[in-house]
């Protein structure tokens, strides 16, 4: 007996551990810091985020902020990633520290997934309402079916105040104003508690009598039928009928209380408007490109032709959300996150204004620690070692043109 007792207690303990460790610790993904671990080519050749603006650095509970800007869907989308035929404009935050009050692409509300076209540029806006205090890294993010999350740049935003003050008032089509934060919560607790009590009552009815050993002996001895008494049957019938009656009655009462309900809404949204950007009048040919590992610098030889009617200068190279600027041509005033902004990271061998009709071959170097920190340099180990990005040219009046580049990259280890 003692041995069995020991075995059983040991087993119980093991079962308890299994239970606690395996099942209860499941938490939905709360982390939003996958940006560095994502393959470099994914970040360089899929969605390019630019002109981003986080409207606030600090926001109080219940107040709102927006993230707005543009994203370019790269035409050299990698073969290994599914095309963005089903994509969802998300936001990279650690759980619902903000609620997403609205999100728009091309002025259209996008609570559902959309179809995006390769080679087009879209403007977007996400409206966030602060819910939980703390310092949060807030990323732009696009989920692509078959491709996973494509994370854009992140900026630290501080939420102040107390979460207990957070409210989420909504006016329903039946004319009520509710607080979605705890709406119908009492109802959830009530029904769960009631049904749980009924379930426990059924268990207690059986568990309070001697169970395993005597009943097992009776079954083995062929007296199984004596184990269920007529009273047991009656009570069982009462439980079953009571259950069915309660289900029917509560369903009827619910339908009376909520005469207007609709099914969940879902479906893909097509025909999202992109921005009509006139074709650039500057053309760029990448003659060669190397990445110098020791110098954390990428060197490109570019042949630039200006077919427009104003002289232009190269001001910015943007790849995987890291921005390399030539400070003499262009300065960022948007408050872009420091760690991915190289204000003087771009050097051009000859960046004097390129006159209309002129063609020039220049050496362009984009150098910054961000190559290493953001693991972009890893792309030299990719099966298809290519780089891609956006080049921005500016004329005298500050007009900007965007040109995409996409070319093989040769690493240099010396």
């Amino acid at each position, binding site marked *: *007996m003692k041995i069995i007792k020991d075995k059983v207690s040991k087993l119980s303990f093991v079962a*308890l551990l*299994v239970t606690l460790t395996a099942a209860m610790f499941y938490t939905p993904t709360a982390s939003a810091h996958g940006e560095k671990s994502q393959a470099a080519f994914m970040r360089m050749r899929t969605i390019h985020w630019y002109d981003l603006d986080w409207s606030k650095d600090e926001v109080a509970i219940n107040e709102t902020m927006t993230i707005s800007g543009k994203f370019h869907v790269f035409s050299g989308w990698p073969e290994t990633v599914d095309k963005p035929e089903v994509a969802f404009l998300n936001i990279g935050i650690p759980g619902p520290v903000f609620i997403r009050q609205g999100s728009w692409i091309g002025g259209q509300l996008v609570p559902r997934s959309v179809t995006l076209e390769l080679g087009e540029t879209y403007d977007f806006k996400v409206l966030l309402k602060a819910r939980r205090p703390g310092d949060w890294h807030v990323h732009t993010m696009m989920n692509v079916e078959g491709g996973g999350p494509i994370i854009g740049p992140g900026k630290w935003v501080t939420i102040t105040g107390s979460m207990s003050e957070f409210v989420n008032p909504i006016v329903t089509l039946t004319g009520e104003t509710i607080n979605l934060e705890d709406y119908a919560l009492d109802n959830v607790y009530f029904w*769960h508690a009631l049904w749980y009590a009924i379930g426990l009552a059924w268990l207690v009815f059986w568990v309070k009598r*001697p169970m395993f050993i005597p009943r097992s002996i009776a079954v083995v001895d062929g007296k199984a039928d004596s184990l269920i008494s007529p009273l047991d*049957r009656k009570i069982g019938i009462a439980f079953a009928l009571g259950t069915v009656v309660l289900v029917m009655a509560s369903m009827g009462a619910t339908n009376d209380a909520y005469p207007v309900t609709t*099914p*969940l*809404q879902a479906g893909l949204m097509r025909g999202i408007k992109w921005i009509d950007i006139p074709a650039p009048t500057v053309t760029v040919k990448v003659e060669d490109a190397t990445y110098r590992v020791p110098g954390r610098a990428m060197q490109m030889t570019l042949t630039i032709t200006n077919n427009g009617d104003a002289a232009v200068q190269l001001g910015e190279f943007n790849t995987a959300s890291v921005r390399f600027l030539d400070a003499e041509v262009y300065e960022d005033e948007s408050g872009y996150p420091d760690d991915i902004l190289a204000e003087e990271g771009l050097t051009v061998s000859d960046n004097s204004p390129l006159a209309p009709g002129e063609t020039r071959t220049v050496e362009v170097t984009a150098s910054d620690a961000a190559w290493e920190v953001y693991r972009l340099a890893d792309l030299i180990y990719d099966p298809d070692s290519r780089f891609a990005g956006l080049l921005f040219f500016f004329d005298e009046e500050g007009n900007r043109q965007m040109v995409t580049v996409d070319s093989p990259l040769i690493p240099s280890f010396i």
Partner: protein
Amino acid sequence: MSASQSAVRSRAEAVQVSRTFDWMILFTLFTAVLGGYHIHYMLTGGDWDFWTDWKDRRLWVTVAPIVSITFPAAVQACLWWRYRLPIGATICVVALMLGEWINRYLNFWGWTYFPVNFCFPSNLIPGAIVLDVILMLGGSMTLTAVVGGLAWGLLFYPGNWPIIAPLHVPVEYNGMMMTLADLQGYHYVRTGTPEYIRMVEKGTLRTFGKDVAPVSAFFSGFVSIIIYFLWHFFGKWFAKTDFIADDEL
């Protein structure tokens, strides 16, 4: 150790030991089922059970009963045929829902701050009680599978409707109509659960027009019958004592 000597000396002692044994077995069964069933249900039912904006009239109604009748069928097989205890289904569901509530409350709400009215579990208790009573009254696996399995599928949606109906009230939101549940899914950002993986209101059972929930429930009940048989056999096999040597008992 001496195996021939009994550890109990009187009837009173035997009763006491037997009762202690009952509680230990019950505790072990409860926690083991809680762990196993909970993992199984998360892997198969997963998001359908986690979020209100997955609890639709088609797939949730179909999937949840089919994947949840498994453990109840198996544990019933053990507790009924060996002990004539008609509590197999209820003990499973009560254990599962305890585990789910701990997980949803501590992790979904306590750790990640999803509101509880967005991530509460589904109610499986009505079907479990009916399943247990049918087995007790009929004492037949076939009857329990056919009548009980069907009832399991049919009771699921109405048993949950009082809980989810308030969240199916429509709202107009920036020019679009949604239910409050849809809005919860939109407001409370899930980085790892993009909208397109949500499988709701998809399927081919559309011939019956508006009344999709009853049709889905019947379909679910029929599949539950088959799954019941399968898992009842698993349970019977698992409850065998052939692999314990006699001298260990």
